[in-house]
């Protein structure tokens, strides 16, 4: 580990060794130029008489790099500043430390030697560096608002579980047909039979009940005349009695017991299936109404209104920014923001041109903090708002001389646009173009002049200005680097007054 961690030291040691060994042969060292012709592949015919340049020319006199001398840290040469090796190692050591001796002793107490060997093999197979780089928690703005490895199903957050887990949904019967008259009558009787026995349907006495046993199996048409008349007379009397009985019950306030109510009849008309599918599903064209309170969800959702906001953020657009920046909504609303660039762009697809709006917005607190936000959306208002929030989240402090202008002359280049900012004396004002003016106003710079000598592309002008403001030289750092004392002559002249 120690050898791998310090390749620079090894290289330096080896180079010093090489130096010592070659000091005696300095005078005999000769530079042998490589022959260019030897580097041309045989299959390639040169079209120019100029010999091709050999690869990278070696310096005639060997240099020693600053890294080998230990003047700069190796991490500074990594291409990706966000994942420098040093940072990763530090994080890995902190978060995934090796077992201490006490922990090892505890493990020895709990596990057999074979188990401990397995544990150690498992630990050794995973590089803490991989855990750090690949298994880290997201910190970007598009991360989920909760930590989850999606191993478990959470009913409120996740999508509804597949049908097999919840209530069984029967697929429609492919053989179902519209009912004919007989089937309809049978279905109606089946429906009516659900209601309590003894009432208008099914359990009433019929005409056959009023004739003798010998006539019951014979059709009415074959009954003798006196039998038929007698039966009709009795049946009529019986029906009259039943009607009287029901009317008397209704008068007394009682419900006609058991019969289908109006609601039942309505539901029969609207919802009873007209297919021969045993009433599998509703044929209603009406959507089912949602219940007032959904069981299991009732009371779980709360409006995201923070009383600390004092009603300034009812729609909740600042909540995410508030969480990330630590500012209050009142503080966010106090910041100065200004839309600087708006551009209409379009994406040509097979469906046609899909237009979007690109918006750049500057945000600042008027006291040395400024940031540039960018957003794109199909809706201008959405793009506006997003870029505004982005600008606020990207606010960083800038260096200001006497809290009014920049340190010296600053220059930044983005694409073909060069922005030059010049420090100016107090009271000079902002003699700059309008976009730079807005940036300065947000940043709290009051005396400045600027030139944009080349391309004046609005987008690049804005970006370059922000870059120039953020990349000003630090006089303290320069003084420390040179080992010299740097004095502000202006302050010395006025007796060292700082303001």
């Amino acid at each position, binding site marked *: 580990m120690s050898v791998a961690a310090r390749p620079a030291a090894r290289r330096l040691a080896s180079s010093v060794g090489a130096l010592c060994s070659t000091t005696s042969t300095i005078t005999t*060292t000769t530079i042998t130029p490589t022959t260019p012709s030897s580097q041309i592949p045989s299959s390639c015919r040169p079209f120019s008489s100029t010999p091709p340049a050999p690869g990278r020319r070696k310096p005639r006199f060997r240099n020693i790099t600053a890294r080998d001398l230990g003047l*700069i840290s190796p991490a500074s040469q990594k291409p990706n500043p966000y994942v420098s090796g040093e940072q990763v190692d530090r994080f890995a050591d902190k978060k995934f430390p090796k077992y201490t001796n006490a922990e090892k002793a505890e493990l020895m107490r709990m596990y057999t030697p074979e188990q401990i060997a397995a544990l150690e093999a498992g630990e050794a197979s995973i590089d803490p560096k991989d855990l750090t780089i690949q298994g880290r928690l997201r910190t970007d703005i598009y991360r989920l608002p909760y930590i989850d490895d999606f191993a478990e199903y959470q009913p409120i957050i996740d999508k509804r579980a597949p049908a097999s887990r919840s209530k069984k949904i029967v697929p429609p019967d492919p053989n179902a047909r519209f009912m004919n008259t007989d089937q309809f009558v049978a279905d109606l009787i089946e429906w009516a039979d659900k209601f309590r026995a003894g009432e208008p349907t099914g359990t009433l006495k019929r005409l056959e009940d009023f004739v003798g046993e010998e006539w019951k199996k014979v059709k009415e048409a074959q009954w003798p005349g006196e039998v038929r008349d007698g039966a009709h007379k009795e049946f009529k009397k019986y029906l009259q009695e039943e009607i009287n009985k029901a009317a008397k019950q209704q008068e007394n306030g009682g419900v006609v017991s058991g019969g289908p109510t109006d609601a039942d009849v309505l539901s029969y008309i609207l919802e009873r299936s007209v297919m021969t599918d045993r009433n599998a599903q509703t044929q209603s064209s009406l959507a089912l109404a949602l219940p007032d309170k959904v069981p299991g969800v009732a009371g779980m959702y709360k409006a995201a209104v923070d009383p600390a906001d004092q009603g300034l953020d009812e729609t909740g657009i600042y909540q995410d920014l508030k969480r990330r920046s630590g500012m209050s909504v009142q503080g966010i609303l106090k910041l100065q923001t200004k839309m600087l660039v708006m551009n209409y762009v379009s994406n040509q697809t097979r469906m046609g041109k899909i237009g979007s709006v690109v918006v750049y917005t500057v945000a600042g607190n008027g006291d040395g903090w400024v940031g540039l936000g960018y957003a794109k959306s199909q809706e201008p208002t959405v793009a506006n708002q997003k870029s505004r929030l982005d600008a606020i989240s990207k606010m960083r402090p800038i260096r200001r001389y006497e809290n009014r202008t920049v340190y010296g002359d600053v220059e930044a280049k983005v694409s073909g646009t060069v922005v030059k900012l010049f420090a100016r004396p107090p009271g000079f004002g902002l003699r700059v173009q309008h976009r730079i003016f807005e940036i300065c106003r947000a940043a709290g710079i009051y005396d400045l002049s600027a030139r944009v000598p080349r391309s004046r592309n609005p987008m690049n002008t804005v970006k370059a200005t922000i870059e120039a403001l953020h990349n000003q030289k630090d006089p303290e750092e320069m003084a420390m680097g040179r080992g010299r004392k740097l004095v502000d002559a202006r302050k010395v002249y006025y007796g060292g007054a700082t303001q």
Partner: protein
Amino acid sequence: MGIHSVCNALSHLQNASRAQLGLTSIPNTKYNLRFALALHRAGFISSVTRAGLTPPPPDQLLTFETEPVTTNNVSTRRLWLGLKYYNNKPVMSNLEAVSKPKRLVTADYKQLSKIARGFKAGHVKGLNLGETLFLSTDKGVLEVREALEKRVGGLVLARVS
């Protein structure tokens, strides 16, 4: 006395600082030596060592016993300059020749005093924050503020920051 060796040294030193070199060499000439010592006084480089064609041992830069220059070894002598870095950034990053071998630029004391205060004088632009000017004067190669102290003007060699 031609200034081509100093002009070449300027280009080389700027390249060296962009390549993040720690120890590099320039030809051993009297002009280069004086310029290197002026850079050292101004704090832009950490060491000036006269040695051979290969770099001297880095750990002995300050105690290195230089061979006396003789007619035998004069052709192999080089000046080895130690470059400085602070917070992983080079202390000296921009070196620009003001005088070129084809056109020499001079500035007198009056002009220099303006330039040092940040104003343009003659063909020389005013100094920005952290910039210095190196001049070749009667009293040797000096930084602009040294020249102002000694109230001399001279040939403007380089603008360094």
